[in-house]
């Protein structure tokens, strides 16, 4: 446990990718099985320990100290595991601390009823770093700035493997990945995922910086749809839908699964259909996510479909080494044989030159479009973001001048700074909240905003402060849609603070009606 705890400490203190790769690699090379496998599971978010919920950890600490002082501490620190690690009473030398795999084994075999005593017992044997690691592990949210991808790159580099091969075999394995480490150390064969309905890593695009330099004739141009990128995997009749990060989201889309009627691996955009037949808003799509069961009403109100981009497997044949032009040809053939209302093709666009392309980007025909994709026709399908093959070119954001109303302390890197900002627009002389932004600013601007909030507070509600209504923020957002969840009746997509307009009087900020007009214009 101590080694894993120091790894988490060190990872938390660096933001450099290479340093993180080095730390994880050194840990994997120096740590025996099965501990290192459980560490990989924790870093990649594949460790599931159902018996320990954050609520249980809270109860344990609240039984040991004043609950209000705990809550205030948690508000400030912004991370449950760290707060508990810092507050848990230190105990003298006693029972030995568990190893990582012993801790995992104990946590995995726990019933809900046993969990409190076992967890408290283990916490009592650890120091601050160890307690932090244990609670992170037990509640399943490490958040140490390491993506699953980065952890796998570190593993590949530590053992001199090709990361594409690691990605490929990864999804057919489960923790603590003993066959993977046997293969990595040359003690066993490469594990094989063929024939299983496993996730295949997505190919990603870079933002297009210089449209003038793209040879359009060499590229397939299509819309970038504003939904959720999914991989539909069908093997031996087993059907799965995976999101970008490899999560299985099949359960939430029972209406879509029957339409996946062929063995295949297909890359596309998950969207819902609006009542008029067009593409529904991202907010409507969100209603369908993270549900175990979906009501009939919701299935009818927002039916799901896939707009297909690419074909990775046709039957059991791996197409990924083929050029995009050939895969697209086979994709068209495949989609023609599937239910048209549930799976359709992302249309190819034609543009003679960069300026016509730019015109398309600026004025897309559907509000469900985020911009353009440009993909080299000869590109193979390769995992990750490979430079020079695929490009994304987003439309320009909308902006509105809004007034800061409330600020809340942030979490993670921003904890203890007021960094979540609720802003409003005018309606009949009063301000109505229209959104919340927690990025877009530099560290210096964050420090400035934090000071401003502290100096202009008029009321406090726990971690939230209400401020004087006089600071104008220029908010950029990708789109805005009608929403019943907000008093203003509007919901912004991806709002961020574009500029602090300390020079502008609050009375001159935008009105709710003006922002609503942008929603109309977008439609």
């Amino acid at each position, binding site marked *: 446990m101590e080694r894993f705890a120091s790894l988490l400490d060190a990872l938390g203190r660096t933001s450099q990718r290479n340093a993180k790769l080095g730390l994880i690699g050194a840990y994997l090379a120096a740590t025996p099985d099965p501990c290192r496998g459980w560490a990989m599971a924790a870093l990649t978010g594949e460790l599931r320990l159902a018996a320990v919920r954050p609520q249980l950890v809270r109860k344990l600490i609240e039984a040991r100290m004043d609950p209000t002082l705990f809550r205030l501490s948690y508000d400030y620190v*912004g991370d449950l595991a760290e707060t508990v690690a810092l507050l848990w009473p230190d105990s003298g030398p006693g029972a030995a601390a568990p190893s990582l795999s012993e801790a995992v084994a104990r946590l995995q075999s726990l019933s809900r009823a046993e969990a409190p005593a076992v967890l408290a017992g283990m916490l009592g044997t650890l120091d601050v770093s160890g307690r932090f690691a244990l609670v992170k592990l037990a509640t399943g949210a490490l958040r140490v700035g390491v993506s699953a991808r980065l952890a796998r790159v570190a593993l590949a580099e530590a053992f001199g493997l090709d990361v594409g091969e690691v990605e490929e075999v990864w999804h057919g394995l489960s923790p603590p990945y003993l066959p993977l480490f046997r293969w990595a150390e040359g003690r066993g064969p490469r594990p094989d995922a063929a024939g299983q309905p496993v996730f295949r890593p997505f190919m990603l695009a870079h933002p297009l910086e210089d449209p003038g330099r793209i040879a359009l004739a060499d590229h397939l141009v299509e819309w970038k749809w504003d939904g959720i990128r999914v991989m539909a995997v069908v093997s031996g009749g087993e059907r799965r839908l995976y999101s970008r990060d490899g999560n299985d989201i099949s359960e939430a889309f029972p209406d879509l699964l029957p339409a996946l009627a062929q063995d295949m691996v297909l890359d596309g955009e998950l969207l819902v259909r609006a009542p008029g037949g067009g593409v529904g808003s991202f907010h409507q799509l969100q209603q369908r996510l993270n549900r175990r069961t979906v009501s009939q009403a919701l299935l009818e109100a927002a039916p799901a479909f896939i707009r297909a981009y690419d074909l990775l497997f046709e039957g059991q044949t791996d197409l990924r080494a083929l050029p995009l032009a050939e895969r697209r040809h086979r994709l068209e053939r495949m989609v023609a044989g599937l239910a048209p209302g549930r799976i359709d093709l992302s249309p190819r666009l034609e543009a003679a030159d960069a300026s016509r392309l730019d015109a398309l980007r600026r004025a897309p025909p559907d509000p469900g479009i985020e911009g353009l994709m440009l993909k080299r026709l000869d590109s193979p399908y390769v995992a990750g973001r490979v430079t020079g093959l695929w490009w994304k070119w987003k439309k320009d954001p909308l902006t509105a001048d809004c007034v800061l109303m409330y600020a809340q302390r942030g979490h993670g890197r921003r904890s203890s700074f007021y960094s979540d900002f609720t802003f409003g627009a005018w309606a009949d002389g009063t301000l109505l909240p229209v959104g919340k932004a927690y990025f877009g600013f530099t560290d210096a601007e964050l420090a400035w905003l934090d000071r401003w909030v502290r100096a202009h507070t008029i009321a406090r509600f726990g971690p939230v402060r209400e401020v004087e209504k006089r600071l104008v923020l220029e908010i950029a957002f990708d789109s805005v849609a009608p929403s019943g969840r907000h008093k203003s009746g509007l919901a912004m997509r991806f709002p961020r603070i574009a500029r602090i307009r300390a020079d502008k009087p609050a009375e001159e900020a935008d009105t709710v009606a003006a922002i609503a007009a942008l929603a109309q214009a977008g439609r």
Partner: protein
Amino acid sequence: MDAVPGWLEVTRAGLRLRQADVWLDPARPVPRAIITHGHADHARGGHGEVWATPETLAIMAARYGPQPGAHALVPGATADLGGVGVSLHPAGHVLGSAQVRLEGPDGTVVVVSGDYKRAPDPTCAPFEPVPCDIFVTEATFALPVFRHPDAREEVLRALAALRVQPERCLLVGAYALGKAQRVLALLAAVGWARPVFLHGALLRLTALYRELGISLPETRAVADVPREALAGEVVLAPPSALADRWSRRLPGGGQGPILAMASGWMRVRARARQRGVELPLVISDHADWDELTATIRELGPREVWVTHGREDALLHWCALERVPARALHLVGRDDEDD
């Protein structure tokens, strides 16, 4: 809860003795001020008359130029300001730092702690508990997550990191007034026998500490030595220099210097990350949670006033302890610096 004594005015701008029109640690220039210590959010330039310890006056003179209206008040001596007896008592925060004891004509005693700590510090006089009716306390680290460890252990940890990476230098971010000199004294105390190298911004106050009789180990200016010679050495710099190009030119064996920061905030991971700190050193010149609460228990005041910081938690603790308490919500205090 008792009312504020009639001779004292309390507003968000600060505390003021009504009769003599004297402010305590005012955020703006005023005709008359009592200053608890030399940090910039307590001691500002441009006041008319100033009452403070001789050390604090010397620090203000070094920072703001000559102080023509200065009244040196040695700890324990009393001045009568409009019928209020004013005396200063060591606060243990930085050199010259003092609590202000105010005894009004009605006999009520108010002690304004300023910033203070109870942990040992070889560079300043230790905190003196002063019995009082009303104790005005800071609350910079007033959350139970803040427990400062033994500062010597923190310095030893930093030196251990340097020992295994002798091709890099250990760059410690430390505030120019107080923290930097305390870290110097700590280095000497744990047996670091080499000279310590200082960023230019730390030279003047370090020299002033020596002039005021504080014994510190040998120091040299970074500017006076070739950069390569700093591998394996300890360098102190103000925190702002950590993220600067200045620090990138220090020897680091390809990784840059070992970035350390000496501050009570380093107890919280996110704070270390925000600073880009690789080696957080929890060394604070403020009282931690245990010191704050133990001090209130020890003094047993009739009432506690909380000036700035995490006042919610301290107020709640006072309520649990049945000590009447209120927050002053003073403006102009920058509690980030430690």
